[in-house]
């Protein structure tokens, strides 16, 4: 990093910047591939697009080790509780990218089986459009999220007032009842 050229081997700065830099540079996504978008997510990790350039290639299979959930694909009513459970298992701080229109809004599948937007179940940070988004779009989404982490506040999570992260009681967002809809026959 060129630090050896400095006359003294220490730097001063804000702790906040350092934490944000660390969070941004070592963000580990959870594998949450659902449908078509999962294939493009895998393509992004493979040779041609190489997510490793952004420190993102370590797809963790356990949600406990992941910071970022990329919801890649349509979320069915049957999958919704599972998705929520995986999200709950992830450690704070955690982020969510809704990859593709199906995850963002339900897309062309405006019907009984698909959750109309994953933001009904989990809070979403970045929406990536496309059906499926190309690896470039996913990368743009990831870089947007990096920028958000870099410029955001470290102690405040979305929707929490006042900003308390190390509170004993974990913050549980309100899950709308539409998670599992029983429709009249």
């Amino acid at each position, binding site marked *: 990093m060129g630090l050896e050229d400095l006359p003294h081997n220490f730097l001063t700065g804000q702790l906040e910047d350092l934490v944000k830099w660390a969070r941004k540079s070592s963000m580990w996504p959870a594998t*949450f591939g659902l449908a*078509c978008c999962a294939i493009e997510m895998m393509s992004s990790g493979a040779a041609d697009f190489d997510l490793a350039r952004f420190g993102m290639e370590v797809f963790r299979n356990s949600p406990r080790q992941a910071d970022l959930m990329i919801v890649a694909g349509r979320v069915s009513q049957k999958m919704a509780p*599972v998705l929520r459970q995986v999200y709950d298992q992830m450690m704070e701080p955690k982020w969510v990218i809704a990859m593709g229109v199906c995850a963002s809004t339900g897309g062309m599948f405006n019907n009984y089986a698909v959750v109309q937007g994953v933001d009904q179940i989990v809070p979403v940070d970045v929406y990536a459009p496309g059906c499926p988004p190309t690896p470039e779009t996913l990368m743009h989404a990831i870089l947007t999220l990096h920028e958000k982490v870099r410029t955001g506040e470290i102690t405040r999570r979305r929707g929490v007032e006042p900003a308390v992260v190390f509170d004993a009681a974990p913050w549980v967002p309100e899950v709308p009842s539409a998670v599992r809809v029983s429709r009249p026959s």
Partner: protein
Amino acid sequence: MVIDENITTVVRPLWPTEETSEGSQELFPRKLTDPAELGREVGSVLRLPEGPTLDPTQIDIERSDDETMIINMGPQHPSTHGVLRLMLELDGEVVLRTKPIIGYLHTGMEKQAEALSFIQGSTNVTRMDYLAPLHNELVFSLATEALLGVEMPRRATYIRMLMTELNRISSHLMWMATNGMDVGSTSMMIYGFREREMILSFFEKTTGLRMNHNYIRPGGVAADLPDGWEDDVEVICNTVEARSYEYDDLLTGQAIFRDRMVGIGNLTAEEALALSVTGPLLRSTGVPWDLRRTMPYLAFDEVDFDVIVGTYGDNFDRYSIRLNEIRESVKIVRQLLANMPSGDYRVQDRKVTPPPRGRIDSSMEALIHHFKVFTEGFAVPEGEVYVAIESPRGELGCYLASDGGPKPYRMHIRGPSFVNLQALPLLMRGGLLADAVTVISSVDPVMGEVDR
């Protein structure tokens, strides 16, 4: 509604009902499972004409639940190829019973198809089998055309063959990549994706999208092949063929790979037929059944290719079949490249074909015609039809019923992965848990098509 008392759906209480539990769809301890179903789960379903392959007395119903353990695998599991969920009963490391639980990607596409017109239909079906989207579009278009009774121009047929064969190559490459990942060969994964990207770039050039193309439509294809397509396809053929021999060097003879694949997940021809299994899974048992050859569609009777069959019906046979099918598809693509006819890429039937883009700017009638085709769609005569093609995973069928309107009355897709998944309990029985992953991989399920 009068319901026969003898037919009830399975209701098993006595099981923890959590938010993510799916009740009677899951695997249950033996004492809660009735013997008939237990028999089915352990693979004794095969009441074959030539004597049962499995003696019913072999089913260890007597085994107590204390000796075994039921574990859950999925739906969010890296090696289940999507959102497949399995519940496995283990005795130590040995798998006794397996139950696939599906539906975690149920998208309601069959219902959605009833709300979309025939011309919008291929947008819908292309998202089913997302590794072979062009095959889905093809089967839907063929079914619609069978009801319409239109004759395709030869060039349209050849373009369809070219694109679906390239798609078959990319799908099998994707399988090679994920299978490599499942057995721990990350190099194969990188190689598989590298070659797939070449084909995807060509698709992007032709159809505008890397996946979910909506390219093959009722009445032809969406656009002609781009200028210079011959060179691109030539490069793809040469590269993929040469590199398929590199995969041989990397995997075929390699000792670890062979240990993971040879003799694992055996299936016999009788079992495969009884379970309605198709595709590489059926061919690995030695049945030379490839719809391109046995019941030709498009113009597959005009090209020369071999149907690859296996002998032992194990994982390694299925690997070899897919690898060799890549080479056969390259062979077909070369023949199509040499014999591509000139002509129109879609049928010139005013009812189904929108006017050319250039005429819309100058002619009011063309604009109205274009508008009507895309908003109202076209009426398809009353009738019903079942069309099947050979997708990379097996027999992909489309049952289409029309009531004479512009939207399908009922569309049903027979997904090969959906049917092939039924072979999983049989393939896994008596195997090790570690081999479960390679067995799932060798069945090659695509959950989008399983759940639809």
